[in-house]
């Protein structure tokens, strides 16, 4: 075997190994999701079967029918929960983005006293686990009377999302050369116009990805929402999952069906925004 063949074999071997490892990694990531989707379509007997049934014998929409059905037959107010989730996630994302765009821009462009300390403090707030805050938050919110309201949860999610979003958006604005804004100012823009007409559009892709992060964080959050919501008027979908548990049983099929419903809007949103995540938008304006 000559040296070239050896190297070719080696390359095939590495490629094969690479694909195998990727398969394992993707399986670990995807299997739970796949299992949920599968379970939402099959009878409870099969879900609970031991050893597990990998290939379903029959698929049905039974769990979905029950979930949307009347309360007595295992139905829950899905529409209501969905609207709560949507209103809370969207509003908190929009507010968090407005704050984070302003903050991120300030960190990227301006020099001010205590800048790095403030920045590190923001990051430190991420180090505190959300659940640890639930009791103090509960007490404060109870005193303020904003438990079980949209407003309360929106407030919590804005606070959760702002520091991380600022950090992300700061990075994106740093990639926008400051000469672009200067050129715009010379071209007749005010500082404000230069931002909205040049810097913001150039950093838009990055801001969109920060927005997805913020939205998904709010959409999926369970720990705090389960403490701060009480009734159908404010419960979000993750909290709604708990409606499928009762004292002695857990309705796994129904839970999976609701989980699938939760995943769908998140997927749709990610795909919509992904179109706008055109990387390399900042390239070309300057040398390179």
């Amino acid at each position, binding site marked *: 075997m000559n040296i070239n063949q050896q190297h070719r074999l080696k390359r095939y071997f590495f490629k094969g190994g690479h694909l195998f490892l990727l398969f394992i990694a993707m399986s670990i990531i995807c299997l739970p999701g796949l299992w949920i989707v599968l379970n939402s379509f099959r009878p409870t007997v099969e879900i609970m079967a031991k050893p597990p049934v990998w290939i379903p014998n029959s698929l049905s929409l039974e769990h979905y029918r029950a979930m949307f059905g009347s309360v007595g037959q295992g139905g829950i107010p899905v529409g209501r929960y969905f609207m709560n989730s949507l209103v809370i996630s969207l509003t908190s994302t929009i507010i968090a983005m407005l704050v984070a765009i302003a903050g991120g821009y300030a960190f990227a462009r301006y020099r001010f006293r205590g800048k790095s300390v403030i920045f590190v403090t923001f990051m430190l707030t991420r180090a505190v686990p959300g659940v640890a805050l639930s009791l103090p938050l509960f007490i404060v919110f109870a005193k303020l009377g904003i438990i079980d309201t949209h407003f309360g949860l929106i407030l919590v999610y804005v606070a959760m999302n702002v520091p991380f979003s600022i950090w992300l958006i700061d990075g994106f604005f740093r990639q926008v050369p400051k000469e672009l804004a200067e*050129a*715009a100012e010379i071209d007749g823009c005010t500082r404000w116009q230069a931002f909205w007409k040049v810097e913001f559009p150039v950093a838009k892709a990055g801001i969109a990805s920060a927005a997805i992060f913020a939205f998904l964080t709010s959409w999926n959050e369970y720990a705090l929402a389960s403490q701060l919501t009480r009734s159908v008027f404010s419960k979000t979908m993750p909290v709604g999952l708990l409606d499928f548990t009762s004292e002695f049983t857990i309705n796994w099929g129904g839970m999976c069906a609701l989980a699938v419903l939760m995943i769908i809007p998140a997927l749709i949103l990610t795909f919509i925004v992904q179109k706008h995540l055109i990387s390399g938008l900042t390239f070309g304006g300057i040398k390179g």
Partner: protein
Amino acid sequence: MASVSLRNLVKTYGKTQVVHGINLDIEHNEFVVLVGPSGCGKSTTLRMIAGLEPITSGDIGIGDNVVNELPPRDRNVSMVFQNYALYPHMTVRENLGFSLKIAHQTDEIIKASVINAAEILGLVELLERRPSELSGGQRQRVAMGRAIVRDPDIFLFDEPLSNLDAKLRAQMRIEIKKLHQRIKTTIVYVTHDQVEAMTLADRIVIMRDGLIEQQGTPLEVFETPVNTFVASFIGSPPMNLLPATISDSQDAVILTDGTSLLLPSLYKSKVSARQSIVFGFRADNLMPIGHGLSPGLETAQIELLVNLSEPLGTETILFGDIAGQEIQAKMFNPRPVSFGETLTCELNLSRCHLFDRESQERLR
């Protein structure tokens, strides 16, 4: 169309002063090049004229107005940036028309102005492309086009050619010069490249450490540099500068190895005995006999041991030692020169420069 005047212009960052009260008058339609090594304050000065950098003290006048506090948009200047600063999310057409759109011009006016600028700069075919789809030279032209469209009083160029390769740079240099002849506007141009400065400028302003060292036409600063800094900065290859002393009899220059050269007659009355000086001459005033200098000049003969030669075709640059210091000489109508060869050279004394060693100023 306007003149620019800088009066005692000072710029300080924190405690560091980077521009130390410079005065400069730029006339209407003049092409002025600010040149100097990096960190000399030339870009800062330009940015202060543009209004991108607030001034610490002093005055900036454009036309008859003092514009110290005016934002960039109210100064009617255009600027071409070193990295072009094209708007990456807009096509070439939108880039060119952006300033007019901001000024709420009608679509017809915008269209006409954009086409006009595109025709001047040969950009017509590129109008629908985005900056990322253009080559370096094309981006540079779009940046210039964006500046032209506004029909500004003053054009500001901040090292616009430094990101281009040598060939393109030479080409764009010519285009900028043509552009100036065509649109006849005041231009302030910043560069660290003395060749650009020499070829483009009506007037060169040489800066160092936040001060203006000398200003004048390219030939003035080339032929009568006021100090050793200007002498070594302007001209390529740089001026040869050798430490020397004036002889007791005040009629000769003694180099450090004892070589005695006749004192150039121009300096007869300007030196004193045993004065420490720097003796300067350019490569094209030291040539092997029969390879360049015309007869009848006031010359001195020097033996040059050649360490290295750079043949450039019409001329060869010779690197050799005089008084233990590396100097450069030129050879026209060149013949091959080998390493270690000793050539008898003629030095054109009438083109030599004497500087005071302590102050580094030209003797006058």
